[in-house]
């Protein structure tokens, strides 16, 4: 039995659930209490050493990297979602990486800044700082990741989101689905992220007609809406 260890319906959780549904795979959902920092306790860290969420577990293989867990579902169980043609598979992998990079951290930053107070964020950082063997953010990110985002950084996040949405809009002006003329892991990945963008920058999604129509197409597919409902907290 496949298990998915997760908490809230974050984009990473939603994309894995949609893919599992699209592959017609049953799975057990294991709830991780992140409010109590259970993802930083030993049982979860045995699956995900850096407290990552969600974690897909298939037999003795724990997969804390959602981007590659998504590819695993396609390659192991749903070949129609993972094109065999090397160029199309490159397109799926590259687009997912670009959309994850453009939308993922930006949506997290904007949502986190909007939904929490400075005091809550300070308390969270203090709690994280006390966790043993936690890797600090590396490289350029280390310069600002542990401090409050300033207006420039928030503006930069919005700009990145606009860039990612424009890239999707341009592709969808030319084709019904993002890669190779068929519904694939690229649509599932982008769907999960664009849904989250709709929460923090609704006008940016609504202003793009191809994107809005494509969202409707993905939602209409069996599994997608169910998956979102399934992932929602009770």
């Amino acid at each position: 039995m496949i298990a998915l260890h997760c908490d809230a319906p974050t984009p990473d959780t939603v994309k894995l659930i949609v893919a599992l549904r699209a592959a017609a795979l049953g799975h057990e959902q294991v709830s991780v209490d992140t409010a109590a920092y259970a993802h930083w306790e030993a049982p979860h860290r045995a699956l995900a050493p850096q407290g990552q969420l969600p974690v897909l577990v298939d037999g003795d293989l724990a997969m804390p990297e959602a981007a590659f867990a998504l590819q695993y579902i396609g390659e192991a169980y749903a070949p129609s979602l993972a094109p065999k043609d090397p160029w199309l598979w490159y397109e799926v992998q590259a687009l997912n990486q670009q959309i994850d990079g453009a939308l993922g951290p930006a949506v997290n930053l904007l949502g986190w800044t909007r939904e929490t107070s400075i005091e809550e964020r300070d308390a969270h950082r203090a709690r994280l700082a006390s966790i043993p063997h936690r890797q600090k953010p590396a490289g350029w990110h280390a310069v600002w990741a542990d401090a409050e985002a300033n207006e420039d950084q928030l503006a930069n996040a919005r700009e990145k989101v606009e860039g990612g949405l424009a890239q999707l809009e341009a592709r969808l002006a030319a084709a019904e689905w993002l890669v190779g003329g068929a519904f694939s892991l690229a649509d599932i990945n982008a769907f999960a992220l664009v849904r989250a963008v709709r929460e923090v920058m609704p006008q940016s999604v609504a202003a793009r007609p191809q994107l809005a129509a494509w969202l409707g197409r993905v939602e209409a597919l069996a599994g997608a809406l169910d998956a979102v409902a399934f992932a929602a907290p009770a």
Partner: protein
Amino acid sequence: MSAVAVHSWEPNSNSGKPLFALAEKGVEFDHVYVDIVKFEQHAPDYLALNPAGTVPTMVHDRHVFTESTPMCEYIDATFPGPKLVPDDPGARYKMREWGRRTDLAAAALSVLGWHMFLGPMVRAMDPAELERVIARIPTKERRIAWSTAAKSTFTEQQLADARARVGAYVMELDTQLARTPYLIGQEYTLADTVTFANFYALPMTVPDYANREKAPHYMDWLKRIYARPATLKLFRTSRSLGQRALEIAAKLGVAA
């Protein structure tokens, strides 16, 4: 089969990934040299090919590839030669996960690389020329990062953090390589390609961590990969970093 062109810098970091993968497969290709020390990756001709201004870019069969790790999977799937990607989906997951871990640790390594090599070269540039080349960087985020890095140096604390992060990753690699000769098992895969392309010079960059006493299995793995014909061939023909790499190979006991 049509010709392959790779527009990239040295066999180093992202630039090096497709070079190593093509060399391992035994594929002949045109290496179009992009000198990132001169910011050539932001020149108009290059941006026409790759608007993001990142290296490497590969062109094959009318397709343009700009994401370095996925382009290596394409290379493996498209060309004959030894398999670099396992067939089993679980093994593929592990291969990709090691690639991601390496990329994250490489972000810390880039701080040290900037401090030791690129930063001093860039700060020696004429300020007006520096301003001109930074202005043509296509994304705001990267303009800010290059501008900040060009004008300032890292603090001792930031450098110490970066060294510790890279050192911790060497220990992670060593732990895995105590179990298996290559990162995901008995065979060389793209996990090794990606990791070697980023971490082949650690005995020189972070000798306090990358040494035989602290990380013997990592050092043995390094030696195994340096000794591969594809690795030696690439470093022998590289313009600027190859000599340094061959010196490390010699110290490891590889006849360069």
